[in-house]
């Protein structure tokens, strides 16, 4: 009771082998595409490295890179095997390798699927990383004289200009941190001293934002200082003026950017997975057809190909037994034909003895 049995004539077998050879080469290209996607994702994450708190997210592009390389190798081997399958003599070389190859490839395709799913699950992790990373970047915005942090100002400014965002969740985040360095504050002036004394940590806090928060589409020159003070500026109402500063927070902007990249990548990876599965099915049919052909002996006759020789339940039970008995090498097995079997004469003796005794 074979699963999905198909009968192949010689011409059909040859055609299947040729088609699979071409498909395997296309799969090599798709492996290269996977690798390329991994490289692209790694570069994109690397570009904003300073805004993420740690390197945890690197596992996703690394997974794609390794999967891509392994897919190239596996499909290259598969192409070679399928090319040789046209000739029964050459097939004998690969006979023992083919079944392990198919099993390994089947498990490998799961890795591709896992890679696609990882891209989806990255979203939450990324949100957390960006929140902490952006918070730190804004906190160290003023430290342009500290080694290791001196480029954060430039990075945050360019980020806000490029992604058209301001602050972590919104522009008000800048009101809670001191983003002007003490080097540029006149500590002798009363205004500065008042502000510094007005809060517990002794920070110079103000309702102002850096220039990179300014919205280029605003009809009026940018108001970056005293943003919440309507009377400080003529004809200005900060609640109704929507276009003065960028409205969105940078965390959401970056998250949207990476999510759209992720979604495209995971769609492409999912399609590659389906394609790999299709090629694998073809290779399995070819393998079973060639093996049956060898069993029949006549190289030009028809042969059957299938996915599984017995039903799914029987195959599962058979494999499970193999695994179960793997550890039982030295135990006595009642079914082992090499052990002494009692003859029919010996078997009949005990009942007569019992009768005599009675």
């Amino acid at each position, binding site marked *: 009771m074979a699963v999905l049995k198909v009968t192949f004539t010689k011409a059909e077998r040859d055609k299947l082998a040729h088609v699979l050879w071409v498909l395997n080469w296309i799969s090599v290209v798709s492996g290269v595409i996977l690798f390329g996607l991994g490289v692209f994702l790694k570069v994109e994450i690397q570009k904003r490295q300073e805004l993420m708190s740690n390197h945890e997210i690197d596992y996703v592009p690394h997974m794609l890179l390794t999967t891509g390389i392994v897919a190239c190798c596996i499909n290259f081997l598969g192409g070679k095997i399928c090319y040789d399958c046209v000739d029964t003599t050459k097939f004998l070389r690969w006979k023992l390798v083919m079944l392990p190859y198919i099993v390994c490839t089947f498990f490998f395709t799961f890795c591709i699927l896992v890679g696609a799913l990882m891209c989806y699950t990255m979203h939450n992790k990324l949100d957390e990383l960006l929140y902490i990373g952006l918070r730190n970047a804004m906190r160290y915005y003023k430290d342009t004289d500290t080694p290791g942090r001196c480029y954060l*100002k430039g990075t945050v400014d360019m980020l806000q*200009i490029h992604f058209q965002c301001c602050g972590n969740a919104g522009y008000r985040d800048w009101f809670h941190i001191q983003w002007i360095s003490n080097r540029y504050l006149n500590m002798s002036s009363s205004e500065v001293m008042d502000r510094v004394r007005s809060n517990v940590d002794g920070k110079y806090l103000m309702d102002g934002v850096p220039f990179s928060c300014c919205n*280029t589409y605003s009809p009026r*020159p940018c108001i970056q200082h005293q943003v919440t003070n309507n009377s400080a500026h003529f004809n200005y109402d900060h609640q109704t003026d929507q276009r003065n500063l960028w409205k969105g927070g940078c965390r959401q902007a970056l998250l949207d950017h990476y999510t759209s990249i992720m979604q495209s990548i995971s769609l492409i990876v999912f399609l590659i997975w389906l394609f790999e599965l299709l090629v694998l099915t073809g290779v399995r049919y070819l393998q079973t057809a060639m093996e049956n052909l060898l069993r029949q002996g006549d190289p030009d006759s028809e042969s059957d190909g299938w996915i599984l020789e017995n039903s799914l339940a029987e195959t599962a039970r058979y494999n499970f037994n193999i695994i179960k008995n793997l550890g039982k090498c030295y135990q006595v097995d009642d079914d082992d034909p090499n052990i002494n079997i009692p003859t029919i004469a010996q078997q009949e003796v005990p009942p007569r003895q019992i009768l005599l005794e009675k």
Partner: protein
Amino acid sequence: MVLMKMKFPAEKRVRLAQGLWLLSWTATMAGALTFCLGCLLKTELRRRAEVMDNTEIHCVPHTLMVVGIASLGINYFAGRICQDALDPGRFPRWKGFLNPYFKVSLFFTSLMLLAVIMSYAMKGSLEASLKIGLKNGIRFYKDTDTPGRCFQKQTIDRLQMEFQCCGNTDFRDWFEVQWISNRYLDFSTKEVKDRIKSNVDGRYLVDSVPFSCCNPSSPRPCIQDQLTNNSAHYNYEHQTEELNIFVHGCRETLVKYYMGLMNTIGAVVLSVFLVQGSVLVSLRYLQTSMEAVAGQENAEIETEGYLLEKSVKETVMEYLDPVLKIIMPNQVASSDEGAEAGNPAS
């Protein structure tokens, strides 16, 4: 006196035809590349069309596009001709076509060279166009409520941020223009009234620049107001401060950008010109050497190929004579009359 005569045995003719076929395909792709480069340049010029006063510079990409398309046609025919050249039966049908073909091809090939020369020569025109365009852009920066000018602020802001420049010649251009609209000025305050009275035209002039002039690489938060007033800011000296705002003017930056682009394109087009020229020279040699074979019994004889039948001067005079006769018929007539007048005297 034949120009650049060369001997062509039969085998050399065959090799010439084969080489020409390959060369014509290379030249076709080079022609397509020229067309694409023309399109690229046109797109780049159009992106900044709002800060340019005129479109004179657009003649460079237009020429490149025309030349690109023409070279596709020229090289297509070159390929067909060289395929037929070695067949004595098929070559004669190209006879009447070849002379006008060469004239047209020479014209378009020289147009290629002209495009490269123009891209260097028109630097002055580009600079003048940008000067006026940027001046207007800065002047109308504040008019975000005037239809037709409402996008100037956005354009100038994005230009300054993308090219990292400020103003026309430099940031001081902003001091001479009122870039804050009257809608946002409180005319009841003394400060505003003083500033307006302080100049002839009644404009609100300040020594400040828009936020788009701010340099993100600066270590300190941007100082855009009271730029020339050192005492207005702590620990600030405007003469030594270089990183606060962008120091270069947008005109200089844009000219450099476009000249860089045109230099690269010019170098590529020059090499395309050389390829195209070699196609035409090879085709001319092939034509003249095959014409000598026509009518002969033995097609394997050695023939001579040349570029021009007479010397350059004689060929040029040959073409110019009919033109001169049309332009100056009187001179020819008066020299005749002079001869006649001279005769009775003698």
